[in-house]
């Protein structure tokens, strides 16, 4: 089903030598899969992997995204030792997870940091689809809940970049309950008058779409991102009709009143910086 959405990100961006061993070097040129134009990799990095020719948004890792968001040297990584167990002894779950963890160089499908954007303190959580399609199990739920609780305690805004196939089925009911767990943490954060920006990136589906991704004070989505509750194939089989091409895209959701804004990744940082500044002034005058 959604597997084909993830393959590009799993493909290594670094070069292999003649024996097929990873050299760790990035190629000088990268081909845009959309307009087929050859692009300088360095230039592509500068534009946060948006094709300067056709505006195609390449998939990015959580590390690549976080790197451009925080003011240099301000990030403190949080909760990065938390990882999943296999509570239901689901066959092959651990071996697959370990392999993903190695590729992504992360312990779980979400990465959290506390840092500054243009001087404003913020907690950012970024999901990473390279680990089990970004699915949410107990560990992802715990990390996100703690991120909100940390922000509530320190009176900080939270930005969550969602990217997920949904709940992690291998953890059964425990994964479903993480939707509730993160929600109770969000409720407490919100009740404290703090800002939560949900930033949906490609793809945000299933249980993640149906929980924290959709309940920001401000709901943003990245240009072209696929966002939806049920999968396209499931819907087509249920209603027995073909869905339009733009169904469940960020633009489709905007049109249907589900989003505050669709953001081009080139404007991601400035958009967030502006929103944060407008809210942070509110906090400062509080009690004056």
């Amino acid at each position, binding site marked *: 089903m959604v597997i084909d959405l993830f393959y590009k990100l799993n493909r290594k961006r670094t070069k292999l030598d003649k024996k097929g061993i990873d050299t760790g070097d990035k190629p000088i040129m990268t081909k845009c899969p959309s307009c087929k134009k050859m692009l300088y990799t360095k230039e592509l990095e500068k534009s946060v992997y948006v094709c300067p020719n056709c505006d195609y948004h390449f998939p990015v890792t959580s590390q690549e995204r976080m790197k451009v968001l925080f003011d240099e040297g301000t990030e403190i990584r949080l909760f990065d030792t938390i990882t999943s167990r296999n*509570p239901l002894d689901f066959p092959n779950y651990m071996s697959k997870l370990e392999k993903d963890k190695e590729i992504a160089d992360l312990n779980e499908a979400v990465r959290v940091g506390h840092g500054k954007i243009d001087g404003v303190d913020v907690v950012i959580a970024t999901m990473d689809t390279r680990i089990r399609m970004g699915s949410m199990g107990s560990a992802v739920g715990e990390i996100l809940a703690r991120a909100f609780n940390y922000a509530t305690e320190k009176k900080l805004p939270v930005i969550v970049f969602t990217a997920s196939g949904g*709940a992690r089925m291998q953890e059964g*009911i425990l994964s479903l*309950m993480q939707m509730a767990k993160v929600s109770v943490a969000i409720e407490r954060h919100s009740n404290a008058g703090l800002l939560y920006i949900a930033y949906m990136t490609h793809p945000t589906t299933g249980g993640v779409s149906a929980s924290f991704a959709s309940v920001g004070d401000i709901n943003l989505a990245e240009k072209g991102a696929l966002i939806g509750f049920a999968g396209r194939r499931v819907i087509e089989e*249920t209603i027995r009709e073909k869905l339009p091409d733009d169904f469940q895209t960020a633009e489709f959701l905007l049109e249907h009143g589900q989003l505050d804004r669709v953001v081009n990744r080139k404007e991601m940082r400035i958009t967030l910086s502006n929103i944060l500044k407008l809210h942070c002034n509110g906090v400062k005058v509080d009690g004056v």
Partner: protein
Amino acid sequence: MAFDFELPIIELEEKVEELKKYATKNKIDLSKEITFLEKKIDVKRTEIYSNLTPWQQVEIARFIERPTTLEYIDAIFDDFTEFFGDRYYGDDKAIVGGIASFNGQPVTVIGHQRGMSTKENIERNFGMPHPEGYRKALRLMKQAEKFNRPIICFIDTKGAYPGKEAEERGQSEAIAKNLVDMAGLSVPIISIVIGEGGSGGALALGVCDKLYMLENSTYSVISPEGAASILFKDGSLKEIAAESLKITGQDLYDLEIADGLIKEPLGGAHHDKPFVFNETKAIIEQGLKELAKIKKEDLVDARFDKYMKIGDFVE
């Protein structure tokens, strides 16, 4: 109607019927043989029903004759007055709700509603809600909070409806908002899984202070069929998936997700509905009594603590 696993019982029952007919027709006494067979049926019944596999429990949980939300409401509550509509778009018949009296105490009661026949199932979209269903539920919950009424939710759905219009009207947002807003309600919430608890569409009525499950009800992140086709790449492995996913009442009780189990008669709730309604009533009484001990201002914190504890990870 019967399940495949009940066939050995039915075969024996048919044999008894045949013997009885034969005895009457030929005027011979076969009572010994009949008593013997009837005893055998009892043994077989106990044997089969006491050792139901998770998949067999899924079949019972989905059974069309299994009691539905409105039957529970009718049997357990008095003066139920149903309210309709979400005030934005329409009324979703896959979710019912309203106010009622429980042992004289005003409560708000909400639940997924399957049909009790194929015709009604079509009207009720097989108990699979659209966004307006969840929004109606939330509207009634907020109303309950204003008038300080406890909320009782009955969960019985395959899941939220996966349709084009459901997506257009914000199925994700409707469910997500219920989760967050239920977390903050200052009145007690009891949720009871009476049939199938299908994923986010079930959870949207399930952020609660006490979660109870009927013994043969199931609660799962994905249907066994879905898990089999996605995880095992073979839809026919649904029985194995049902087992691996740990979805039965007992499983959830063992995982400390369900706070209590409601007993069912041998073979499932449909065999003795009044018994099940009584058991359900008793557990609601007990739950409300326990929750009444928590101060109103501490209720949301207690709910927060309950959910913070859920999960299994290493650090």
